[in-house]
């Protein structure tokens, strides 16, 4: 069974009253391999994307003593001069491949997330075949979901950022210098919350598409919206906490990188930066775990229970025994 769950599984999850955060994290913990493989994809694609950039800078820097100022510390002047070199070429030429591979990572995420959701919903280790079957079966549905999400989120983000710019500009007319900054912070927080709510909506729709094996994406979008709207506080709280965890991981990683990695240690920089990026994947998978938990707790269609009427037991009636004269009679009920 690909899209659905067995009755026992449903009941087990329905009765699970764990809070969403704990439940979501538990799913992530039991399926660590997904994070690992996504990280491998992330590294591999970034490495391929950085190839053009690496080729150019190796040509300019490898035989130059001037380049050493980049090793001993981080001299912005040397960096700016490097980018200004004609040999470096247009910045787009060396950075565009990285962008392309970032989008490829996005596409692969679209491809593999259905398998992840299926795996998170399963109470057992999802076989590889089932994982890829879920991926293949839901790819087109996910692309449609992404397009709709892109339109909705793009429109909302455009409107909100436009409003934000107008408000900050208006605050800029004030004689209170801090006001534009404060206005920006407040509006960005609001934008973040609204965009996170939209993300929840489409995460629930994704879970519904995969776990209900719903071919009609619009129905999942509708269901996702209704549930997001009705349980906004609970879901938003969980998502905000996970997003804050991501922020903390990023800040801590950068702090460790700056404080403890010597400027000349390329190895140290690689270790700290990659470990930070690996950890940074966790919060988003955690959010997906939360979406699956919520789905299983609140979105699974109630199972129609028909009253059970046992078929009457028909006892074959033995043919009346032949009356045998002088035989003892059977006792009669009272």
């Amino acid at each position, binding site marked *: 069974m690909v899209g659905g769950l067995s009755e026992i599984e449903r009941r087990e999850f329905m009765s699970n009253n764990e809070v969403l955060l704990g439940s979501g994290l538990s799913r992530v913990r039991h399926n660590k391999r997904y994070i690992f493989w996504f990280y491998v994809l*992330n*590294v591999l*694609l*970034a490495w391929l*994307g*950085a190839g053009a*950039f*690496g080729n150019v*800078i*190796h040509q300019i*820097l*490898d*035989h*130059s*003593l*001037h*380049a*050493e100022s*980049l*090793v001993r*510390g*981080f*001299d*912005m*002047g*040397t960096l*700016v*001069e*490097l980018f*200004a*070199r004609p040999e470096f070429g247009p910045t787009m030429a060396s950075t565009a491949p*990285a*962008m392309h*591979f*970032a989008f490829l*990572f*996005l596409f692969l*995420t679209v491809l593999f*997330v259905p398998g992840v959701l299926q795996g998170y919903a399963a109470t057992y280790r999802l076989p590889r075949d089932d994982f890829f079957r879920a991926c293949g079966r839901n790819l087109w549905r*996910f692309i449609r979901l*992404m397009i709709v*999400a892109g339109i909705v*989120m793009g429109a909302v983000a455009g409107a909100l950022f436009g409003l934000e710019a107008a408000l900050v500009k208006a605050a*800029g007319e004030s*004689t*209170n*210098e*801090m006001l534009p*900054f404060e206005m920006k912070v407040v509006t960005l927080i609001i934008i973040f919350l609204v965009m996170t709510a939209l*993300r929840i909506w489409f995460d629930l729709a994704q879970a519904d598409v995969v776990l209900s094996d719903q071919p009609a994406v619009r129905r999942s979008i509708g269901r996702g919206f209704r549930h997001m709207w009705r349980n906004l506080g609970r879901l938003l709280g969980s998502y905000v906490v996970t997003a804050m965890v991501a922020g903390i991981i990023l800040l801590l990683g950068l702090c460790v990188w*700056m404080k403890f990695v010597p400027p*000349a240690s*390329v190895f140290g*920089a*690689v270790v700290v*930066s990659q470990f*930070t*990026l690996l950890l940074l*994947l966790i919060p*988003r998978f955690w959010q997906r775990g939360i979406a699956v938990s919520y789905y299983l707790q609140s979105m699974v269609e109630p199972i129609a229970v028909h009253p059970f009427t046992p078929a009457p037991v028909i006892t074959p009636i033995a043919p009346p025994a032949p009356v045998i004269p002088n035989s003892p009679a059977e006792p009669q009920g009272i």
Partner: protein
Amino acid sequence: MKIRWMILFFPLLSVVAVSLLVKEHTAHAAPPQGAAAAVTAASAASAVSNNSALTIPDTTLAINSTQPMSQRVVHYEIDAKYDAGKHTVDATEVLTYHNLTGVALDHFPFHLYQNAFQPNATWVREAKIAGSRDTGYDKWEAKEYGSEEIKSIEVAGQGDLTSQLHYIQPDDGNKDDKTVIDLPLRTPIAPGAYVQFKIAFHDQMPETQARSGWKRDFMLGGQWFPKVGVFWHGAWNCHQYHAMTEFFADFGVYDVKLTVPQFEVVGASGVKVAEVNNPDNSKTLTFHGDDIHDFAWTVSPRFKVKEDGVYQGQMGPVQMRILMQPAHWSQADRHEKILRESLEHFESWYGPYPYKTITLVDPEPDSAAGGMEYPTFITGDSSWFMPAGLHLPELVVEHEFGHQYWYGMVATNEFEDAWMDEGINSYSEVKVLDSILGKRTSMLDVAGVTLGEREGQRLSYTSVADVDPIAQKAYDYYSFNSYGGITYGKTASVLLTLEGIIGEDTMNKAMHTYFMKYRFTHPTKEDFLKTIEEVSGKDLRWYFNQAIYGSQVMDYRVSRVESFPVNWYEEKKDSKKDDKNSVYRSFVWVHRREDFVMPVEVEVKFDNGETLREHWDGASRWTKFEYEKKAKVVSAEIDPDHKIQIDRNDFNNSNTAEANPKPARKLETYFMFLSQWLGQALAWWAV
């Protein structure tokens, strides 16, 4: 008898003839710039005005000197009222001018700078095409409009000449430009004589442009009054206001009364001598300046003032008055510190600061008023968020203070020789900030990321290296970027390189000599260059012709380094043993890629630790150094002491035999991190 009549007749005839000639000459409006538009002293002696009652005061109230320090040409007495609601100034100006030109002057041009901020003015036309520092002019907004109108002008002894005023456009003939107005006199002013103008004028100040105007309730009154041109090298020098030019004026005395609302906090050039509250809720402040050539002021009701700082200068105490934005108040000490350190360095290196005050204004945020210099009055540039390692306030305050020397006292022509104030000042800025904040960290020192001011100046130059020479009029530059990169960046880099050629001590001595010799005058570029040659005792024309007058570009490179065994054809048996005993033939090729010719040193290092220094005159396009040693060449580097700041590409100044991939790998790591994070962020929000 006949002879007696003839003796009487000929002098009379000559007087009449000269009078007619002078009248005819005076009637010629707006003689072209550069032409000697004055009447010679001899020919006009009998027909010129000489108002002996007038004089320029020899006050020393605002300087730490008992004698005037400049040859005072002008005395401005201005009584101005600022309307904070309309952003207008209504004022009367009494200008006394002392004709020290040696010729009679029959007309006077005046700058009306605020007229630059009109859609068809030369300033805006140029800024729209070539760019400007603050404003893009994608569309014209009414608040950008500025104007300066002379309501009336009287000349002592000649009456009301308002009707004689007419705009002139000596630089580009743009009839819509009203930034220079010319006044022909009825009677020329004799050499050595005084003339007094009584002017009533009205300003409409724009929202801040080019470091002048209002923003919210802040106002910077810069270039706000009719200012007479400078009679320089035999002609009036009174250029139109261009998008890339600044100013030029004569030294003198300023007495300025400013009437502003009582709630305003005021800062201005010179020293405050009086403050009176008026019954109409306004107040009148009187300022006096000696030996200065401009006067600026500012008001804002929200300035917080720090004025307890006093610097004990070589000529006497200097009061440091700092007007801060309330949200920047915590940076007041930081501003005072860099101001004090700048004073110390300039006094110690170049000469004394003679004024009794220096006013530092932290202007309104998001205004185009930051980073400006006026005599004894400068504006800084900061923000509420300014980490200690981000040295923007230090950089701006130091730079603008430096202008007290290179512009304020050594008053070069900023229209024609912008590099002599901005460029020489940028050189000083590099030296002072290097000394205070460190060579590699003087601009930025945050979280291990660093940037030095000298590198910043060099990069601003190398981005526009082949576009313009230094020695050209500021309004003739290809673009605003070119103006900035050449005037500031190239001049600083050229002078730092010159320091490498003649030695730092000699350069310091030359700068000191130049300042002391030319302070309170209007030197030319040759005055500066000749001073350096005289002090250094060297003929430096080969350098100046390329670096100052030319647009040659420098790019030297070590194109190849190579070593191979002399007996390369023999089969090796024991490679380790061979390496030690083998004799190698090594080559180093050095190539001059561009057209700037300069002798250079080349340092060659070998793997046995030996280091050699070679000298190459750079005359040919390339040269080759050849060695035969029991060692292989490890690296070769042009200019190993890093004295040359004008080489366009520092990466190819050296070449190593073995590749060192570490710098590139480090950048790759950073790049990978960013692109991975980008991928994750995309996936976070999109899926």
